[in-house]
């Protein structure tokens, strides 16, 4: 496991560096600057003299390479810079956003796994059956939904019409506020998981060793419990990992729609206000999360699949 972790880290660091460089370069050629972004709502006043001064103070006029070098050196000591907008350390801003984001992503993934894997699994046990057809039609429809549209629909149905759940916001951080955004975010991965699980279980059910298990005289239930589940899990876990990792990025839309105080909404907001240190911090955070999840998935592989250790 240490070997896997070591190998993983050796991959993660160059990736992170590349991400930092890419993000930095991308956003340094962005038109508009934070200073003009202060008038983003079209209602706030600006003062040209102050703007010039701020540009200087924020180092926006320094050569690109110099800024980049400074940025990388600072990151190495855990300093992500200071937000243009709030004049607070980016790390501090992020720290307030990570927990809500994680909560949302984890809730969405829990929903996706519970519903998706169960559906996919049940569908695979009777391929071609009514449940299978229904689940797969549902899954493919789930993949065809526009997230914000679906989110709006959820809001209207569950908040406005049925009045079961609050429509937006973080509330006291409890479950009630979490449900709708989690479903809106989780429906895509759920659909994907349902399909993957179904395919994986079918794959495993057709594997030679399942035939062996049957030839041993096992009941189908035992076959599934002893031999199918674990093997199907290996296939499913890849998708879970990939989805989990990219969910934080996808959360951008849902967070914005539901006014959820996560990293994604902070990022979009900061992009539009050209608060570059914050944008970079957010993306770094999202990438870091992605890589962390992937590392966890790799470790999970090692735990589940003995073959990996010897590869």
């Amino acid at each position, binding site marked *: 496991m240490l070997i896997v972790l070591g190998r993983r880290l050796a991959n993660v660091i160059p990736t992170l560096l590349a991400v930092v460089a890419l993000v930095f370069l991308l956003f340094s050629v962005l038109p508009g600057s934070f200073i003009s972004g202060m008038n983003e709502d079209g209602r706030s006043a600006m003062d040209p003299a102050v703007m010039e001064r701020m540009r200087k103070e924020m180092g926006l006029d320094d050569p690109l390479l110099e800024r980049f070098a400074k940025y990388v050196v600072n990151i190495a000591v855990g300093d992500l810079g200071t937000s243009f907008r709030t004049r607070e350390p980016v790390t501090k801003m992020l720290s307030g956003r990570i927990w809500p984001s994680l909560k949302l992503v984890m809730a969405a993934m829990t929903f996706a796994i519970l519903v998706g894997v169960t559906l996919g699994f049940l569908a695979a046990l009777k391929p071609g059956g009514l449940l299978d057809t229904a689940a797969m039609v549902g899954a493919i429809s789930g993949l065809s939904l526009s997230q914000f549209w679906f989110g709006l629909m959820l809001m209207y149905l569950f908040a406005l019409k049925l009045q079961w759940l609050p429509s937006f916001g973080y509330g006291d951080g409890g479950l009630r506020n979490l449900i709708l955004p989690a479903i809106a975010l989780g429906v895509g991965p759920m659909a994907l998981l349902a399909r993957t699980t179904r395919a994986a279980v079918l794959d495993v059910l057709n594997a030679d060793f399942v*035939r062996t298990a049957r030839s041993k005289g096992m009941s189908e239930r035992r076959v599934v419990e002893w031999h199918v589940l674990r*093997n199907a899990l*290996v296939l499913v876990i890849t998708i879970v990992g990939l989805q989990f990792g990219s969910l934080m990025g996808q959360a951008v839309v849902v967070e914005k729609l539901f006014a959820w105080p996560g990293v994604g909404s902070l990022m979009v907001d900061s992009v539009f206000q050209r608060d570059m240190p914050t944008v970079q911090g957010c993306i770094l955070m999202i990438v870091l999360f992605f890589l962390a999840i992937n590392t966890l998935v790799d470790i999970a592989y090692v735990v589940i*699949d003995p*073959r990996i250790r010897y590869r």
Partner: protein
Amino acid sequence: MTTPLLRVDNLRIALASDGITYNAVENVSFEIGRGEAFGLVGESGCGKSITALAVMGLLRRPLSLGGGRIVLDGQEIQDAPAAEMRRLRGKRIAMIFQEPMTALNPLSPVGKQIAEMFVLHQGANWNEAMDRAEEALRQVRVPSPERRIRDYPHQLSGGMRQRVMIAIALACGPDLLVADEPTTALDVTVQAEIIDLIAELCAAKGTAVLMISHDLGLVANMCKRVAVMYAGRIVESQVADAIFATPSHPYTQGLIDSLPRLGERARRGRQRLTEIAGVVPSIQAYPAGCRFNPRCPAVTDICRTNVPEATSLPADGLVRCHHHG
């Protein structure tokens, strides 16, 4: 004669494809006595493997049992309920497969996969079962079985894996072992060892073997009696020695003649090999009459229209050819 251990009578296996049902196997009958090794030989696609699966009750869609009887020890099992079949499988009839890599669960230690047999059929608890699994591994001559039981399939060589499969199959001392091309995926030298092992263990335990292979030589070496299948039918069945000495069906004849045999060139110089013309037909395109007729050197009109009946040969042998007897 006492009742045979296994009697397959007029077996028919249906293949559903595009709404049409084909007979992948038909008219297949054979008997295996207690402790007897019986060989089923044929090329790929001739139906020998699915015949074995039918005996095990393991046919899955799109294949299904179309008719006929399978009698195990006097008991008809072709329509036995699933639970009943499960009790039989593993306990009284066991099977080993062609690919020992894929036939073992890659995520489970081999010891556990053997131990499952004791848990399933003998009500052992896991500890006890693991001890017995170790013993079973020792029996199939896996070196240092106490360590090997914790190994995963990918840590073993092909031959070792097949030994594990044999250990699983023989764990509960079945009456019949169905071996479906057990050595095809193995090297020549390893193949010899595995065949010897199967023969030896089965002889010791009095287990009958249904040996399935495309290699007539291999089967003839190990089995007392051999049946040759072609395109879903048994074309000839004889005592092993006799089938080489006096092959009665043109197909059997062709098979024996078409392959260079070791030492043949030294004795007779290089002879042009006898070819069997044409190709093996697919299930969807079986010819009418004798299915070998398009490739048969001795074909006549009747071969193209009438299905040949079985003709008896000495020592319970039979052949299906219009030109015999």
